[in-house]
C-alpha cells in the first residue's frame, strides 16, 4: 500500500516536471505560414496559458486583441500560434517585439502553389478543448520542408543543469539519511522489539505453565 502511494507520488511529481519543461522550453517547427490575423480575446479560464497584457498599455483590462499566425506544418497538419509579449513575466523569454514579429510573419506568407518554408521557434501547447495556443518567439526563412532545425543547445544546457541539481540534492539526501536517519530508525526498532519481548514475556507469565 505504501509502495503504491510512493510510486503515485513520484510519478505525479516527475510528470509535472516534464510537463513544465515541455511547455516552457523552446521548440522549432518547420511550417508554411498561410495567414496572420488578430482576434479579440478575453481569456477568463486557463489564463495561465495566455500572456500578460502588452507591456506598453494599461494592463488592467483583461480583454485585448491578440495576434495569431496560421500555418500548415511540413508534416501536413495545421498549427495556429498566438503571438504575444511575455514581457517581464514568466516564461523568461523577455519578448517585447510582438508587433515586429507579426510584420515578419505576414511578410513570409505563401501559398501551397509556391510554398516558402519558415522555422517558427515557439513555446507552449495547442489544445483545442482549452483554446490555448503556443506562443511564437521568432520566425526565420528556411530552404525547404526538410531544413534542419538546429541542435537545441539551450534546452540541453537547461536540462543538464537541472539534472545536475537534482542529482546533487539526491546524493546529499541519501548520505544524510544513511548517516542520521537510518541509525535512529534502527534504534527505535530495537527499542520496540525489546519492549514487545518484555510485554509478551509479562503476558507469558500469566499463562498456564505447561
Amino acid at each position, binding site marked *: 500500500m505504501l509502495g503504491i502511494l510512493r510510486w503515485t507520488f513520484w510519478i505525479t511529481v516527475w510528470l509535472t516536471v516534464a510537463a513544465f519543461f515541455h511547455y516552457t522550453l523552446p521548440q522549432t517547427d518547420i511550417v508554411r505560414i498561410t495567414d496572420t490575423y488578430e482576434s479579440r480575446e478575453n481569456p477568463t479560464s486557463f489564463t495561465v496559458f495566455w500572456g500578460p497584457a502588452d507591456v506598453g498599455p494599461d494592463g488592467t483590462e483583461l480583454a485585448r486583441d491578440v495576434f495569431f499566425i496560421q500555418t500548415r506544418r511540413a508534416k501536413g497538419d495545421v498549427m495556429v500560434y498566438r503571438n504575444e509579449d511575455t514581457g*517581464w513575466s514568466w516564461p523568461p523569454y523577455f519578448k517585447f517585439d510582438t508587433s515586429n514579429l507579426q510584420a515578419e510573419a505576414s511578410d513570409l506568407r505563401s501559398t501551397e502553389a509556391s510554398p516558402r518554408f519558415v522555422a517558427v521557434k515557439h513555446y507552449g501547447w495547442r489544445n483545442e478543448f482549452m483554446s490555448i495556443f503556443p506562443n511564437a*518567439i521568432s520566425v526565420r526563412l528556411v530552404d525547404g520542408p526538410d531544413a534542419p532545425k538546429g541542435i537545441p543547445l539551450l534546452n540541453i544546457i537547461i536540462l543538464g543543469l537541472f539534472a545536475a541539481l537534482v542529482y546533487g540534492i539526491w546524493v546529499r539526501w541519501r548520505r544524510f539519511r544513511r548517516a542520521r536517519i537510518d541509525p535512529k530508525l534502527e534504534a527505535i526498532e530495537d527499542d520496540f522489539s525489546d519492549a514487545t519481548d518484555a510485554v509478551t514475556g509479562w503476558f507469558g507469565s500469566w499463562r498456564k505453565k505447561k
Partner: protein
Amino acid sequence: MAALVRLMVVGFIVLSVIYVCLSLYSRAVRKGKLRAQWHEEQPDQSLDAFLHEGLEDYDKSLRRKLILSVYVIPVILVSVVIYLTNFA
C-alpha cells in the same frame, strides 16, 4: 511596468537569500581552512587571534567581492536574452 517592478523585487529578494547563504558558506570554509593551517604550522599566535587576522584578510579579498556576481550574472543573462529575443 508593474511586472518589471515585481520581477525586480522578487529577483532582488531571491538573489539576496542566495548571496547571504553563499557568503556565510564561503566564510565558514575559509575559517575551516585557517584552523587546519594553524594546527599544521603551530604559529606563536593563539588560535583565536590567528582566525581573527585571517578572516579580516579574507574580508578584504577579491574572492569575497566576487560573490557579488550573484547579482551581476542574472542581470547580464537577462540582457543577453532580451537582445537575442528581440533584436538578433
